[in-house]
């Protein structure tokens, strides 16, 4: 029941975005400052995007018309209402908010702290209730991964000074590669 409604919604959003992109294509695509000859520029930068957006609009329209003929728009979805009030729905929303927040904080808080927050909250949301397991995974895995990547593979990961200083005694003990 839910997929049927969501596929119409997804197609509807794609349809609206494609129409908007078509309408505002003059603002969204910059023309070359000087007109180039056909030898240099056989095709304008607008041609292919126009064709693809037109294709998207047509395909989305065909899909929406087929669904409308089947009466999908009229279906009152009580199951969806139930789903919105369910714990699963809110768990997913919380997960999305945490993931987006952690993505934005990665450079500011550093890799280990961000991953600790992200992994702890994901563990709880997935259903792990063992505090020992959650803490072990959320601390040990990012710390060891950070050490392997920065010390063994010699590749930088974003990290704040404080954490780098705390880890320094550990990394100094490790053999250099």
């Amino acid at each position, binding site marked *: 029941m839910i997929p049927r409604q969501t596929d119409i919604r997804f197609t509807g959003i794609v349809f609206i975005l494609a129409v908007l992109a078509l309408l505002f294509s003059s603002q969204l695509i910059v023309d070359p400052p000087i007109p180039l000859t056909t030898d240099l520029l056989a*095709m304008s930068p607008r041609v292919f995007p126009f064709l693809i957006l037109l294709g*998207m609009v047509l395909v989305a329209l065909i899909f929406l018309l087929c669904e409308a003929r089947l009466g999908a728009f009229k279906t009152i979805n009580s199951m969806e209402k139930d789903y919105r009030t369910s714990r699963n729905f809110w768990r997913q929303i919380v997960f999305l908010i945490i993931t987006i927040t952690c993505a934005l904080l990665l450079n500011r808080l550093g890799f280990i702290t961000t991953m600790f927050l992200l992994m702890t909250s*994901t563990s709880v949301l997935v259903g792990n209730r063992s505090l020992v397991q959650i803490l072990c995974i959320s601390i040990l895995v990012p710390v060891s991964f950070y050490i392997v990547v920065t010390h063994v593979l010699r590749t930088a990961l974003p990290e704040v000074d404080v954490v780098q200083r705390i880890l320094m005694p550990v990394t100094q003990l490790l053999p250099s590669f």
Partner: protein
Amino acid sequence: MIETLLAGLDAALRIDTFVWISGGLLLGMLMGSLPGFTTSMGMSILVPISFLVGDPLIGIPFLIGVYKGGIYGGSVPAILISMPGTGASIATVFDGHELTKKGQPRKALEMGLYASVISDLFSDVFTLVMIIPVAAIVLGFGPPEIASVMFLSLVIIAVTSMGPVVKGLLMLCLGIWFGFVGADPFSGMPRYTFGTNELYDGFHLIPMLIGLFALPEIFNAVKEGDISGSSVGRFVGERLRLDELKKSLRTICRSTVIGTGVGLIPGLGQPIAAMMGYIAAKNASKHPETFGKGELDGVAGAEAANNAVNGPTMVPLLTLGIPGDAVTALLLGAFMMQGLRPGPTLLETNGEIVFAILIAMVIANFLFLVLGYISIPLFARVVTIKRSLLIPVTIMLAFSGTYLARSNPFDIVTLIGFGLVGIAARSAKFDVAPMVMGFILGRELEYTFGQTLALAGTDWVRFALTERIGMTAVVLATPIVGVLLGVRMSKFRQRALKGGQA
């Protein structure tokens, strides 16, 4: 070419390559064995690691190991707990789990392993033999021919994707459109960048792939909550006898041919090959009524067909730069990160590396047999691991893998953006594979099409009908192929559904 092949053989015979292949095989089998973890997801988070090791002769074979291991690993939960680890193992459930119910899971798992290794070995040798003539033909291709083959491939990918054709076409167009973001390939003028510098180079492939494949799986796991493995996940029962394997050899050979053929066509992939292999085994059997009730031939037919796809998908990838499915799209990303651009000139410019990778693929099958045999009991236990322990590690790998690919913080934003698109598409039952293919091939298609127009000049009718008749034939045949394949695919899906229920 023979000299390049020998140089490739020399380059492939390195101990570190085999150590990394073994690691890839084990990781792939682990990922495949975990219900809810797909091969695409596993590979997407491991692509950046293949880049970090630096050498393409280590990084690419490592991923090929993950690919092979993952496709086989999916059969473990399919057989033990009736939950296919990957889409490729759906047909394995029908008879594999019935054998488990009869107390013979060991027999089913061993048959799956032998069928997978035999078919994989033959299809890899076929790939190695095929790549030379195909590359020689493709070398004669100019932009018009490449553009027409890409157009044909995109149509095939859209019509053979999961679900209705309209959905596949919509996702394909969406993927192509995402490929337009950034500088125009001819004039260098920005398109859909909204004035930002970050978007001028376009979206990077790796965060896009991780976002589309890994984040929706994690999101789904959050929805479903913790799923611990069943107590059925045990490796018990009789071993597979030699006479039982001999009896199934004909089925394995038939499925190898089917899988190899399917692998050569972009877009079809392992799930379709597995169903075709299973149905062919059932149709050819003297006792079709035993299928679905614990028939070893059913396991052999499905497993041989899905693993035989692995090798031939490399032919269009390496010679034309066209990935056959989502996993080969990830391999394409790995090749590009290593500075290798799959396409007609790859064999000329980096022939030694290409042959080394293909030879490593062939040798990997022997490692696959040994490691698979030793580790079956271990992966039978892996099925019982709680998902809540693995999902947090996966999300960490998704984030770090994205960042490590280019050390660009904007890639994390791309990851989240495509993650949201993937989540929306998955909940709406849209297949993201055509979108990935569209993203990869759309820009190339535009570029080669532009070159074709430049070559044609003003008299394009004469150009199309006299100079490039091959291109015109492919372009004209594309809609016919699309319609025929679309009709056949919908009939095949209905038949497969009936086969599965039987």
